[in-house]
Structures are given as structure tokens and as C-alpha cells.
């Protein structure tokens, strides 16, 4: 049996677990997957966070991807980081950089168990700040400078590829290299607030071809395996070319709800809660949703397409939030089948999505910096 098939049946514990610690955020990015802004009063307590780490350690989850919201806004964030390290659960956390002072950077550089991912969405301030808010590029690059100065090599610079930054791929690579960091590119999903901007920001089919060839030419660039739908253009991209939702990945949200992947924060893909009896372990191993997701996929409308083995029908979340059937083409199908399906559906099947934890009223534009 091929490895991909083995993974399709699921694992005893996730390989890649995303854990969003808070819905609070000091930015208001237009494409935020989790519609973050305000903290939720029901967010897990420090003791509950520690109990989750204990479970992850027992399940031998090697590392977690911590995000939010802006995870460093939680007052107990640094304590949680120390607890994970003590339990030998590695952490990679995503941040906008606003709390990565020189002192914090030195502390982070001192352990192998912590990796940092700084998000930017443009290789210059104008392109980035249009998505992430005024001043956010300067804050992110200050954080990168602090990490580099502290000797933290190989941290990640993470970019969501959009119609407006896809021409800057070489610039992103150069920027990451200048800080001795690693570039990571991921796909824009129509999830959270991303649903509102997806039509304008998602890359065109022609841009997808350029991106595909650029990725093949730059195999060291990380992607979180998020562009596997592009494998239908010919050669497979490196990594797992399969939707890993509920099979190798899942998401724990700030209130402890467990979803099939970081891009489907919707009731239909909620498998349970870490607060349920049996905790996260039981949700991962026994929930009805995850059991169902580990069944063989049906190719559905894609069955007659010669590329199905390469792209496996693409991303479940992208289909769901654009109102397409899950057993059909991805909205960004490289052969154009998704576009045709979108036109036919004309948005009728799009799920209702609320504003989530988005702040109402004017968005704060200044980002607090903690002195080092």
C-alpha cells in the first residue's frame, strides 16, 4: 500500500495539529480564516490548555501549530510554551510579530522545540498593509530582524498567495533569505472573512500555472502541502497530495471545539470538543465525523477527469465555502471545471457564515509593541 493510501485511513494521532489559542487579535486581516478580533469569554483556561498538552504528549503528537487570533496576546502564552517544551511537544507558532521584541527573540532562539512563523501578505508595505492593516509590514519585518539578530535561523516567513502578491514570489524568497528564514506559501481559502474577499483576491488560473512552475523550481519553499490541487497540471508537488482533514490534520479552536481542518470552522465540520469526556483523544479516534472522513473519497463529478488521481478533487474547505458539492471539482480546478460549477451554482449553495469574532466599528490601526 502506498503511503498516501495509508495516511488516508487516518493515524492514531494527528501529524499536524493546529491549535488556535484565542480569537483575540490586534490586527483585522481581510482574509482571516477564523474571523478573529475579539477574545471569546469561553476560551480555554490555562489549566484546560495544560490538560490538552498532557493529552498531546501522551498521544506522542510531535508538534503543534499554534495560532489564533494573535496567540501571544494571551497572558499565559509564554507559560504554555514552556509547558509544551517541558512535555516535549514541539511548537510552531504563527504571529504577526507585534510581541517579538529583541528579548523575546533571544528567549525563543534558545530552544529547538519552538519555531516561529511570521505572517506577511506582501513583499512591500503597500501590498501587505492593504491586506493586514497599516503598519503591519513594519511590525512583521522588525520581528524578523529581532529573530535574525538573536541568531534564530530558519524561522518561517508565511505568505498567503493572492492575486496581488503572486508576482512577488522572488521578492518573498529574497526577503526570507535576507533574515536567514524559510519561506512558506499557502493557499487563500474562502474561509472566515476570506469568504468576503475570495472572489477578488484568489489567484487567476493563469497565475496558478506560474505559481505551479515556480514551486517546482523552488522545492525548498514550504507550502503546508496546500497547493496539491495544482498537481493536476502534471508533475506532483512535493508533500502529501491529499486532503488531510480528519486524517492527518485537525484544528482545536480557542473554546476547545475540534474541527476537521484549520479552514473549516463551521458546525458541519465540528467533530467534538476537548471539554467532552474522553477529551481530544476520543474526538480524534472515535468521532463520527473523523471516522467518515477516513473512508475512501468518492470522485463524484470528477470521476471522468484524468487528473483526479493527481489532485484528488482538491480542497474540501474551498468547495464548501464557495457552495460547491464536496464530491466535485475544487473552485480553483486548474482545468476550469470549478469555474464552470461556480457559474452554474451562482453562489446558491454557499453556507451562511456570520461575522465570527470580528470587531465591530473601526479597526485599530496601531499595534502595541512591548519594550524589550
Amino acid at each position, binding site marked *: *500500500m502506498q*503511503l498516501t493510501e*495509508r495516511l488516508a*485511513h487516518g*493515524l*492514531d*494521532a494527528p*501529524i499536524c495539529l493546529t491549535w488556535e489559542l484565542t480569537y483575540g487579535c490586534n490586527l483585522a486581516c481581510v482574509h482571516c480564516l477564523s474571523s478573529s478580533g475579539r477574545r471569546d469569554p469561553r476560551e480555554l483556561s490555562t489549566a484546560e490548555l495544560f490538560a490538552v498538552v498532557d493529552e498531546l504528549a501522551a498521544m*506522542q503528537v*510531535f*508538534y503543534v501549530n499554534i495560532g489564533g487570533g494573535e496567540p501571544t496576546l494571551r497572558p499565559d502564552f509564554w507559560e504554555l510554551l514552556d509547558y509544551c517544551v517541558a512535555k*516535549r511537544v*514541539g511548537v*510552531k507558532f504563527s504571529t504577526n510579530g507585534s510581541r517579538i521584541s529583541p528579548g523575546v527573540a533571544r528567549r525563543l532562539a534558545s530552544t*529547538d*522545540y519552538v*519555531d516561529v512563523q511570521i505572517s506577511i501578505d506582501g513583499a512591500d508595505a503597500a501590498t501587505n498593509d492593504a491586506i493586514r492593516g497599516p503598519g503591519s509590514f513594519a511590525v512583521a519585518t522588525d520581528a524578523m530582524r529581532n529573530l535574525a539578530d538573536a541568531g534564530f535561523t530558519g524561522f518561517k516567513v508565511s505568505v498567503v498567495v493572492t492575486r496581488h502578491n503572486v508576482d512577488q514570489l522572488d521578492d518573498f524568497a529574497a526577503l526570507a533569505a535576507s533574515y536567514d528564514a524559510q519561506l512558506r506559501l499557502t493557499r487563500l481559502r474562502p474561509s472566515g472573512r476570506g469568504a468576503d474577499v475570495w472572489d477578488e483576491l484568489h489567484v487567476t488560473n493563469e497565475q496558478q500555472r506560474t505559481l505551479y512552475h515556480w514551486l517546482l523550481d523552488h522545492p525548498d519553499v514550504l507550502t503546508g502541502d496546500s497547493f496539491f490541487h495544482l498537481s493536476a497540471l502534471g508533475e506532483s508537488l512535493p508533500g502529501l497530495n491529499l486532503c488531510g482533514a480528519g486524517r492527518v490534520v485537525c484544528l482545536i479552536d480557542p473554546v476547545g471545539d475540534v474541527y476537521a481542518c484549520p479552514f473549516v470552522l463551521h458546525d458541519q465540520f465540528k467533530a467534538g470538543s476537548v471539554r467532552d469526556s474522553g477529551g481530544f483523544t476520543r474526538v480524534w479516534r472515535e468521532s463520527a465525523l473523523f471516522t467518515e472522513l477516513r473512508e475512501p473519497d468518492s470522485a463524484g463529478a470528477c470521476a471522468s477527469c484524468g487528473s483526479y488521481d493527481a489532485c484528488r478533487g482538491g480542497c474540501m474547505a474551498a468547495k464548501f465555502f464557495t457552495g460547491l458539492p464536496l464530491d466535485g471539482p475544487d473552485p480553483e480546478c486548474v482545468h476550469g471545471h470549478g469555474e464552470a460549477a461556480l457559474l452554474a451554482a451562482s453562489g446558491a449553495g454557499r453556507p451562511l457564515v456570520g461575522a465570527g469574532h470580528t470587531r465591530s466599528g473601526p479597526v485599530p490601526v496601531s499595534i502595541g509593541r512591548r519594550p524589550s
Partner: protein
Amino acid sequence: MRYALHPQVGIRPERFGALAYHYGNRRLTFLGDDKLLAVVRTAHDYDDIDAAFTAADVPPAQWPAYRRALDRLVAAEVVTCS
């Protein structure tokens, strides 16, 4: 030559072989079968890797393939060789 699991690597058994994760370079490696997993886990006990193969019930005809697999794991920094 003595082989051993790299000190920065964690191993997690799965229904097929195992997953290995290197906390330094943060790479994930798959070990495709249980015998290879047994060899990796016990290699440090043996001066001669053939003895580890014997102990893990690897048929002698497959030893060359297992040596190549071990070399790949050394290159991937899952296993050390000294």
C-alpha cells in the same frame, strides 16, 4: 560502525511502521515497516548491525536492502552512525 537513533528524534509507532520526527531540523520521516523500526530502536545495542538484523528477524537476503534503508535514515538524520 555503530548505529543509533538520533538523540533529537522522536518515534511514534503507527499501524504501518512508524513516524519519526527530528526536533532540530523539523523533518518528518516515515519508517515503512515494523522490522526496520525494531532495527532502528535496538541498533545502539549492537557493535555489528548484522546482529541487530538477526535479532529483528530480518531475513539475510534482505540485509542489503535494510543497509540501504539505514543509510537513507542516516542521511535524513533520523539515525546516527559512528
